[in-house]
């Protein structure tokens, strides 16, 4: 697809070819792959011995142990499976802020991660949402999936209000098997709602990664003169003198940031911030290295 190069720059692709995104927790894959599967069976990595119970497949008996001890033990293995990942991308109105748009940045991040995982024959799906799920591409592998994801990104325009909880509930209901869910959003909505969605994923035993994409302005509130801030998600305009309003804004922002991080931590959700004035290549690389270091792989 011609749009692929727009989201995957050559330098990024070159770097991504040397990286991989692994699931830190157990995910349910459809094929044998790099990632641990919760299903035990004939696989390469021994897990434990278990006393034989009626109904176990006789072929899974450890004949050596039976010969030495006359006791039937079943030999269990950790089944290694491929990664099943759902990329959830926020396309609410607030994602249109900045130059480049946070949405563009996030879309390139989505494409990068999808490329990275599909290159490792993982299954990757995409959910685009704002106040609800707008687009759902179920996780699949293969190069055609990347094209489908990029095509979906190309045809989305950020608009409308945000209700991440609702979208996450819908996605969780559809996702089924345990997967790695990567949520990419600016998270400019109440933490409580976000937490609900994350909790739903956690309850379904999905591994969660929350990637927050923000513009530098949203972090620093750099306005100097009187400014009429017009809400991008239909909020009432707000005329403010930045010199006075900045303190309030930053206080609120800091508080929200901390609550969000605390909530992610509580739900065992990895959290990372991407700022659009940083190179996507560097930010992605740093994120993957950090993740790799933390997982010990």
């Amino acid at each position, binding site marked *: 697809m011609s749009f692929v190069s727009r989201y995957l720059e050559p330098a990024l692709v070159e770097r991504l070819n040397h990286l991989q995104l692994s699931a830190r927790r157990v995910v349910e894959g459809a094929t044998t792959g790099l990632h641990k599967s919760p299903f035990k069976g004939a696989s390469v990595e021994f897990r434990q011995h278990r006393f034989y119970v009626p109904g176990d497949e006789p072929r899974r008996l450890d004949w050596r142990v039976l010969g030495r001890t006359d006791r039937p033990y079943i030999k269990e293995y950790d089944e290694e499976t491929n990664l099943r990942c759902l990329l959830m991308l926020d396309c609410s*109105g607030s994602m*249109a802020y900045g130059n480049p748009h946070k949405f563009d940045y996030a879309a390139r991040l989505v494409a990068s991660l999808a490329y990275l995982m599909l290159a490792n024959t993982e299954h990757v799906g995409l959910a685009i949402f704002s106040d609800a799920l707008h687009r759902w591409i179920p996780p699949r592998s293969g190069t055609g999936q990347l094209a489908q994801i990029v095509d979906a990104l190309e045809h989305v325009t950020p608009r409308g209000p945000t209700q991440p909880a609702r979208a996450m509930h819908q996605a969780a209901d559809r996702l089924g098997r345990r997967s790695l869910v990567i949520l990419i959003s600016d998270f400019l*909505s109440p933490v409580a709602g976000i937490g609900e969605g994350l909790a739903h994923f956690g309850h379904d035993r999905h591994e969660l990664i929350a990637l927050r994409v923000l513009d530098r302005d949203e972090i620093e509130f750099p306005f100097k003169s009187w400014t*009429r*801030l*017009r809400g*991008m998600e239909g909020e009432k305009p707000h005329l403010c003198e930045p010199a*006075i*309003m900045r303190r309030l804004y*930053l206080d609120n922002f800091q508080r929200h940031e901390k609550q969000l991080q605390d909530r992610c931590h509580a739900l065992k959700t990895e959290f990372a911030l991407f700022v659009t004035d940083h190179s996507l290549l560097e930010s992605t690389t740093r994120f993957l290295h950090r993740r790799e270091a933390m997982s010990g792989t």
Partner: protein
Amino acid sequence: MFLNVIMLVGIAGAAVPLVLHLLNRARYRNVAWGAMMFLRATDTRRRYSTRLRQWIMLAVRMGVVALLAVALARPVAAGKMGALGASANVTAVILLDHSASMGYGRPGQTRMDQAREAVRQIIASLHRGDDAALITLGDFPRTPPPRPTADLQSIVDSLDSPQLQAAGTGSTNIADALSLAANLFERQSNPNRQLFIVCDRQANNWRDVTARMADAWRQRVGGAGAPPRFFVIPVGGWESDNLAIESVAVNSPQIVLNQAFDIQITVHNFGSTPRPDVPLWVFIDQRQIAELSASVPSAASTTVIQSLRIRAPGSHVITVRTQSEGVSGDEQFHLAVEVIRPIDVLVFRDPPLSSPPGRADYLTLALMPLAATGHGRIDATAVRLQAWSADDDWAALDSRRFPVIVLDGISQITPIQARALEQHVYGGGGLLVSPGSRTRLDNFNALLYRDGSGLLPAALAPPTAADGSQATAILGIDLSHPIFSFLRGRPDPAPPATIARHFRTAHVRPDAQVLAIYTAGGQMLMAANFGRGRVLLCTTPLDEDWSTLPLTNFYLPMVQSMIRYLAARPSRNLAAGEPIVAQFDAGEQATAVVIAPDGARQELPLQAAGDAVEARYTATAQPGIYTVALGRQIQHFVVLAPRQESDLTPLSPDQWKTLSDQLGFKVVEITRASIAAAVGDARSTHEMWAFLLAGVLALGLAELALGRAWSSGVGGTKLS
């Protein structure tokens, strides 16, 4: 109080932050913003706090501008507030009374000695960097006041100059002095100003200080900023005893050789003790010719009349002296007089010149009474009668030969004659016009009045009724005029004459003087100047045709006085500063010499003035006798000492308080401690601008700090 009030307009600039605030609100930029959720205050208190901060910031910014404007207006403060300000150098103006009254007291302890000591103390109280100006009052000429100098020692040195060793001869006028000080202060930029007046307690010094003048002065010196600290340091005691010769006047417009005249000597006792036997000595040209005695009640005047006769023509000085322990200078009085030879009067009449049988020529009789009676003595006037003729062009009128011309009832004159008369008067001659029954009014008005530009003081109108039905009398006489000085002291100066007819007047010239009027109204005698000469218009004939005036004892002295007035030379008794103008017959000398009262001689250049020459001298500051000589021609001039200084009556405590309230001064009695304390207290006035600028800076920093504190977040922007 502010030194630069105009800058207070800048307070309006405090509105600039508000205007900018409103303008900025109106000129905001629109930004599509995603993170709107962080702009909402989480609670009402926070919302109000944010709004309060906005207003506090605005108030601080407005305060910066307003405070800056106030600082630029250079406020000054005294007392505890003043101690916060910066101490500025002082500009002191010291007005020193140097009038004649300052000489009162025993030698070495005069008021002037005390005043000089007071000035020394004032100077001693000033600090390094201060400047001061010493201005003496009561001196002539009034030179521009000196600029304040930081060389204070030079001022102290000037106190020992011969000029200030003794009292002056002039009179102090505090109102003028205050105006002088205001001029000086207006040229000074130093806001710390002090004004000292060192004077005696004489009330007369303050004669022109009124409530209105005081208001105007205070507005002038205080209008643009802080008024000067004002101190009056009175010197001398409350003594007021003084005896002065108030005036010496001659009861004749012009003294004529060998003719008796009276002088009126007025002596004033300013003290509270009657003086029963005050000796008076009269001198003519330093030669005593009479000794008189006067009894002068307390706080009153007494006039003594002495008859004199001078037997030499020319310039003379009459001096009257007495003995007084009060103010020096007022115990004698000089009077310069010019004694002329008998006055030649040319009288024009319609022919025949001689009176009809049975009628007297009253005018000639009045002017030459001694000749008419066959007395051997010479009259004051010599009359020459001349018949009027239309053919006579009067070109040969010799003004020097006949200083006075009388038109005695002539019927008309020709234009050439009118022009000749104008030339005569313009050159300094005198003219008496007395129209008669045959006078053609239209001719006189056209040629002598000339719509107000001619000789006559007024146009003549038709006379009153010939039947005597409008007869009147002389009612009002201007006794202050020299012509009627012979009437002074008389109980009933109006003559018992009946004026049966008289000419009315119309269009009186604005510069004309009315010297006598009729009971029925209308002018009887009028005077006017024309060039350097004088004109008198008598609206009733000087003979007995229309009045009984010639039959009264009033007629002779009046006619003689009129002629003397017309022949009188300009007065040689001048006020200080008035220039001396001495006229001489032209001679071979190129310069005249003037000898001042202190003996100083100066040569004066001569200038032509018609047939004569003229010498001018303007440095007449010093009262006394000035002698101007050209060869053998000598003229004396007297510069009169002001007599206001003789009245030593001190200000009463109530008057001091009133003046102090009106002018805002503090009276400081002369002791070293009191002057030092007063000056020290005056220094407690300080400029506050530096203090306020510090406030501006503090507010500016506060604005920055508040802006930074309220606009930055806790933890800053550490996210990346």
